[in-house]
């Protein structure tokens, strides 16, 4: 067997196999083609790298050979390995005089190197030379290279030549020169700003190819500055008209449509030019309307142009007739069975809905269908549409759907996106605060740390502020329900950090407010949280402060405080924490418990998170204390201005820098060692540290700054001050005071370290968490009517059904009715779709070979022998061979559908195919039969067939060639 294969290959080589490449190359391609796993491919490539390194070290490599090496290097990089060891050879090849070699060199360089690579500089010279070549193909090649390799620094080196080439007699050169200029514009707009007029000029080029290419840079220019190009509206309209009227050469037709890609680009440009410009828009109406009429709505490309027309209509000044035409197309798209067209329809609807909201109503059913479609792409597009049409009347349904979908996916990128959309819609359209809080809870629970922290602060703020009116009972109800829901949620495992912070804060503020829960119950829960999330310092900080608040409220309500044992151990543990923030909070808690109710009343008033904090700048409450001290003989206070001569450290910080420096030598001697530390900080740093404190009062800033940096300071006054500030900071999360700096920084660093694992945790725990959450939701009863709706809408699959029940029970009465009406329609539609979808003839041959799944029970070796016998000498026999080997493969297809999961020696068979095919090829050439097929290369179609098969690509119909369907 092996021998046969080798002989076959050797023969193929002898005749060049019709490919003109070496055996080594063929072997490489073959082995890559046959690799059945990534690991195998990896091994082949690594081996190839070694081979190439050896080969490239050999002296005097023939150029043809070198070209092949370069292609092999391209393979190496394409398959994900570094080929930098040979970049220089690619660079060298660009110098070659032979066009094919030169072009291959440029290709390899542009595939290997980014335009900022060091080696590029070695090519600039060659490009310059090539741009001057007499052979326009060389010039074209160089221009292609310019587009890929020239960066903003090297633009000047080639710019003059490129500009010259804009007037070249060959249209191919003009086209590429335009694109080179376009590239320069992309890379450094200023370098070509004086040349943009060339784009306008080339728009009138005789060659449609050049004109079409010019639309690319013009599109970019118009995107940035519409007004400068308003005068071109007439030109664009007239070009579009000519294109639509088939004035361009036939060769630009695609599926009988005249130059559709140019039409699309023109429509894009017109959309920009007509946006918000009635005059310009009016010039476009006729041509757009004509295209609506002319476009073939049965082909994809026709629909692509129609879609672009809709985009244009939705962008330009409103025209009822065009709007009507657009609406018709949309309705056809949405009714189509093709998911692609539905997708385009939904997108188009989203565009039109801005100018004509009523359009959506007639398509409600189709939209619901798309929303429930299992295809994520379609679903997401539909969410996009829903987002655009959200009003306060439908926000609940839409956000519910979004959240259910958010829960069901694992893709963090999209999860973040849709979570932010939910939040945005909820904030904008929330019908009630109750609903808002519930919605936010869900978002936090399931998207957790993907949500912006600001959202958490907004939520806390909302709970604290309530309805903002004087309705106190409603406010306290809201809080009670929030507390209740949080006590339920808090036992869930692995809640996201941000959400826990909200929970802790709310429980601390309002946990005992309505008297339903005892202080020990709430503090117990908070201790559990601190224990369960012991890695999360921010959560622990929130928890311990919440505990402090609960105790403070208890004391001020004159109830006896019994600290739970677990609470005590938590405080003890935190007092010894490495985090100064946690330590401070623990000490504060201990201090607060020790003081009397009256003092607590003033430092920790209940439900005062929204009160403004009044700061007594004069510290008048200290007057008595100061008075007593003076009476006892203390020195009176000398104000800052009076003592500039005898500065202390505090003063230093508030001085202008030069002055401070001039005094710096002096005060060091007077100061105690402790506060000296900041004084050594260079003035700039000091200044910046005070800048962190946006409070204008110098004394105040100093005080807190010190308090934060020296946690051991524990005199009564500063503690009191600190306590209040902590409260403020935590509530609103704004870095208002310097003490907050430390807090935010710890939370920030925490997030980066824990982010990954936590996110993982969230996604895995999601489904579980949600089920439990749902099951505990009160009164989720689904009426038979709704069940019917759900089953007809969701087709009875268990997964979607669940979504239906959780998603739809909130649908308001009115929408419910319409749903039911739709349901019947949806059902029949779905059935119809099912029937239609199965036999849909597609342009493409998707029916797949049996390679990955199953293979028929034909002994490949026997088959090979049969083949070899048959194809002794003549090419007609080859035909037979092809036929013979095809039969079992067709059988394989049937076997595929009947017995799935049947495994067999797939690899073997493929290898066999390859061998026999190669020998076939060889024999054909031996006999000298030259059956020419179409295409420039003299290749036998059978050989082709053979090669197709050897790659494991099995033909499935009469024509064994891969692309039979493409040309019909």
């Amino acid at each position, binding site marked *: 067997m092996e021998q046969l294969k080798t002989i076959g290959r050797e023969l193929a080589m002898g005749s060049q196999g019709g490919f003109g490449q070496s055996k080594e190359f063929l072997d490489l391609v073959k082995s890559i083609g046959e690799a059945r796993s990534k690991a195998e491919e990896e091994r082949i490539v690594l081996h190839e790298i070694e081979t190439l390194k050896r080969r490239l070290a050999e002296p005097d490599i023939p150029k043809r050979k070198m070209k092949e090496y370069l292609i092999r290097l*391209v393979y190496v990089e394409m*398959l994900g390995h570094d080929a930098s060891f040979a970049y220089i050879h690619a660079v060298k090849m660009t110098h070659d005089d032979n*066009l094919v070699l030169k072009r291959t060199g440029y290709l390899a360089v542009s595939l290997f190197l980014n335009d900022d690579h060091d080696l590029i500089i070695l090519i600039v010279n060659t490009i310059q030379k090539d741009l001057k070549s007499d052979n326009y193909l060389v010039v074209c090649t160089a221009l292609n290279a310019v587009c890929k390799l020239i960066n903003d620094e090297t633009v000047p080196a080639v710019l003059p030549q490129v500009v010259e080439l804009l007037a070249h007699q060959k249209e191919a050169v003009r086209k590429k020169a335009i694109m080179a200029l376009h590239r320069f514009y992309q890379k450094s707009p200023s370098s070509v700003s004086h040349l943009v007029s060339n784009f306008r000029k080339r728009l009138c080029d005789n060659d449609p190819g050049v004109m079409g290419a010019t639309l690319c840079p013009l599109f970019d220019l118009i995107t940035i500055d519409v007004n400068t190009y308003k005068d071109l509206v007439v030109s664009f309209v007239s070009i579009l008209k000519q294109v639509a009227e088939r004035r361009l050469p036939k060769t630009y037709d695609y599926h009988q449509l005249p130059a559709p890609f140019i039409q699309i680009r023109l429509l894009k440009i017109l959309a920009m030019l007509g946006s918000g410009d009635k005059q310009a828009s009016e010039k476009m109406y006729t041509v757009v309307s004509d295209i609506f009429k002319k476009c073939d709505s049965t082909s994809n490309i026709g629909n692509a142009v129609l879609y672009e027309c809709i985009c244009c209509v939705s962008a330009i000044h409103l025209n009822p007739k065009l709007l009507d035409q657009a609406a018709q197309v949309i309705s056809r798209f949405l009714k189509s069975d093709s998911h692609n067209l539905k997708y385009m329809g939904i997108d188009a609807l989203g565009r039109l809905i801005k100018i004509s909201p009523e359009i959506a109503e007639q398509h409600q059913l189709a939209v619901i269908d798309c929303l429930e479609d299992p295809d994520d792409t379609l679903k997401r597009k539909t969410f996009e549409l829903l987002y655009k049409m959200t009003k306060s009347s439908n926000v609940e349904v839409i956000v519910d759907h979004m959240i259910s979908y958010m829960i069901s996916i694992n893709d963090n990128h999209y999860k973040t996106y849709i979570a932010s959309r939910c939040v945005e819609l909820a904030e904008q359209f929330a019908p009630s605060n109750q609903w808002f809080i519930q919605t936010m809870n869900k978002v936090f629970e399931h998207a957790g740390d993907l949500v912006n922290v600001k959202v958490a602060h907004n939520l806390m703020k909302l709970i604290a502020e309530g309805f903002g009116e004087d309705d106190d009972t409603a406010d306290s109800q809201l809080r009670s329900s929030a507390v209740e829901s949080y006590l339920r949620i808090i036992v869930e495992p692995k809640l996201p950090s941000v959400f826990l912070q909200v929970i802790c804060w709310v429980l601390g503020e309002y946990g005992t407010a309505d008297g339903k829960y005892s202080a020990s119950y709430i503090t117990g829960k908070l201790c559990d949280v601190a224990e369960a999330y012991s890695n999360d310092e921010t959560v622990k900080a929130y928890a311990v402060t919440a505990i402090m608040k609960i105790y403070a409220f208890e004391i001020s309500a004159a109830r006896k405080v019994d600290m739970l044992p677990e609470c005590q151990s938590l405080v003890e543990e935190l007092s010894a924490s490495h985090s100064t923030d946690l330590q401070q909070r623990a000490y504060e808690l201990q201090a607060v418990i020790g003081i009397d109710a009256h003092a607590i009343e003033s430092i920790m008033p209940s439900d005062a998170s929204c009160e403004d904090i009044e700061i007594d700048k004069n510290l008048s409450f200290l007057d008595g204390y100061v008075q007593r001290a003076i009476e006892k003989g203390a020195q009176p206070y000398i104000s800052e201005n009076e003592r500039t001569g005898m500065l202390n450290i505090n003063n230093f910080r508030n001085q202008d820098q030069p002055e401070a420096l001039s005094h710096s030598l002096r005060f060091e001697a007077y100061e105690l060692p402790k506060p000296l530390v900041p004084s050594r900080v260079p003035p700039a740093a000091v200044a910046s540290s005070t800048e962190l404190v946006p409070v204008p009062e110098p004394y105040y800033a100093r005080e807190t700054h010190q308090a934060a940096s020296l946690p051991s300071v524990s005199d009564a006054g500063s503690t009191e001050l600190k306590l209040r500030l902590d409260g403020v900071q935590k509530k609103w999360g704004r870095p208002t005071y310097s003490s907050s700096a430390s807090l935010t920084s710890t939370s920030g660093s925490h997030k980066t370290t824990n982010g990954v694992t936590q996110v993982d945790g969230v996604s895995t725990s999601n489904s579980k968490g949600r089920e439990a959450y749902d099951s505990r939701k009160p009164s989720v009863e689904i009426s038979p009517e709704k069940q019917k709706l759900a089953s007809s809408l969701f087709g009875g699959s268990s997964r979607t059904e669940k979504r239906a029940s959780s998603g739809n029970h909130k649908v308001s009465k009115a929408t419910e009715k319409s749903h039911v009406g739709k349901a019947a329609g949806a059902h029949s539609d779905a059935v119809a779709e099912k029937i239609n979808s199965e036999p849909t003839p597609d342009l493409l041959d998707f029916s*797949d070979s049996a390679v990955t799944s199953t293979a028929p029970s034909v002994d490949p070796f026997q088959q090979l022998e049969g083949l070899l016998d048959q194809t002794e000498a003549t090419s007609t026999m080859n035909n037979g061979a092809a036929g013979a080997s095809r039969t079992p493969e067709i059988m394989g297809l049937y076997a595929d559908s009947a017995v799935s999961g049947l495994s067999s020696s797939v690899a073997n068979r493929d290898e066999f195919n390859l061998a026999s095919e190669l020998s076939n090829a060889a024999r054909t050439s031996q006999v000298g039969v030259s059956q020419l097929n179409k295409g420039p*290369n003299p290749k036998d179609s059978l050989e082709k067939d053979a090669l197709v098969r050897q790659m494991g690509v099995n033909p499935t119909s009469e024509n064994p060639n891969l692309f039979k369907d493409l040309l019909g």
Partner: protein
Amino acid sequence: MGIRFILMVNKQGQTRLAQYYEHLTLQERRALEAEIVRKCLARNQQQCSFVELWNYKIVYRRYVSLFFLVGVDNDENELAILEFIHLIAQTMDHHFGNVCELDIMFYLERAHFMLDEMVMNGCIVETSKTHILAPIQQMDKT
């Protein structure tokens, strides 16, 4: 910008051709291609030919064993790109005569040359088969 990359991947997920119109490191390419293979190849033929991935939208089309995938910006006309893929396939078919995966593998550079004629700076610049193939045929003559 429009087109950000063109990939050809066979149904085993092996890259057969890769042309990027923006710079990505080798690692980024590997990650991107792996993710695309994971996302796109598993889809069935009823589903949309468009997939959103990271900040790309991927438009793909399957030809027997070979997937043509084009990564585009979000504001690109997906249906037009889908047809552009078909134009690429047709052009290659025209050149190779019943193109197959192996043609692209053996003549990787030619496949690239064709793309170079059709797409520059991420924009579609030429859609006439004759114009696309003319320079390549001329090159063969020399």
